[in-house]
């Protein structure tokens, strides 16, 4: 399901269809998170990615009216596609080789991930993640909040300056 969605993102001509394929992939990854006992991250994945980000994509597609069908047959740069195939397949091969050679050092060495069951409680993963974020990585957490504020202000500024120039032109 994840791979089908990913193929859909890169092969569908219509941007809206690509966005919906992206939703399929993101949901699949969320399911894989649940399987691997990362329950909080699965919830965040569904809410933030499949909810907010894809809706943002669809909003921009509708707003700009760029939902024209892209012609995938034409190839503006010759030999770009074969090169892209070679590069991406090579990347996949290199990554798999890296995982294969590195799997020897993958042994348990952390302090342990709590698996929610009757003894640890149903929200053990969330509690453990919160303890990690708000104790060891609290500075990084604060920096991310600053980053979000900067991103919001910057986007508002980008959109607003365009609006001013449009009104000046209309005057």
């Amino acid at each position, binding site marked *: 399901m*994840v*791979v089908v969605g*990913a*193929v859909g*993102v*890169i092969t569908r001509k219509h*941007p809206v269809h*690509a*966005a919906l394929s*992206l939703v399929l*992939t993101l949901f699949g*990854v969320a399911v*894989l998170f649940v399987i*691997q006992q*990362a329950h909080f*991250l699965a919830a*965040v*994945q569904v809410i*933030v*990615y499949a909810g907010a*980000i894809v809706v*943002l*994509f669809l909003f*921009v*597609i509708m707003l*700009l009216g760029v939902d024209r069908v*892209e012609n995938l047959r034409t190839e*503006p740069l010759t030999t*770009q596609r074969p090169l*892209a195939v070679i*590069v991406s*397949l090579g*990347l996949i091969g290199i*990554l*798999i080789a890296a*995982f*294969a050679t590195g*799997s020897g050092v*993958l*042994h*348990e*060495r*952390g*302090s342990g*991930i709590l698996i929610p069951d009757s003894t640890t409680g149903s929200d053990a*993963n969330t509690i*453990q993640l919160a303890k*990690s*974020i708000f104790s*060891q*990585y609290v500075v990084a957490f604060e920096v*991310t909040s600053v*980053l*979000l504020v900067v*991103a919001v202000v910057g*986007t508002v500024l*980008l*959109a607003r*300056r*365009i609006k001013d120039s449009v009104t000046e032109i209309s005057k």
Partner: protein
Amino acid sequence: MIAFSLVPTASWYLVLSAVLFGFGTFGVLVRRNPLVMFMCIELMLNAVNLSFVTLARQLNDINGQTIVFFVMVVAAAEVVVGLGIIVAIMRNRSSVTADDLAELKG
């Protein structure tokens, strides 16, 4: 070496994340619509997140999941800024492909 079995093991997830990353790279290199290129970047970020969660599970270490949390926050901020830039560019010109943005003059 990677041991394959029908039950999904960590190597399955790692291979899947590698394949997802490769698809994302292919999409960024081939597609011309900036929005679809952004979606492919999201695909690559998700592949990295998947491998982080898998390795966190395998190493039995919660820090992997913490990093995935931060990656998600940064990806959200990146999408907001990127879409803002795309909207700002697209309002000035009606072109929809990345090739038309080659010149720097506004």
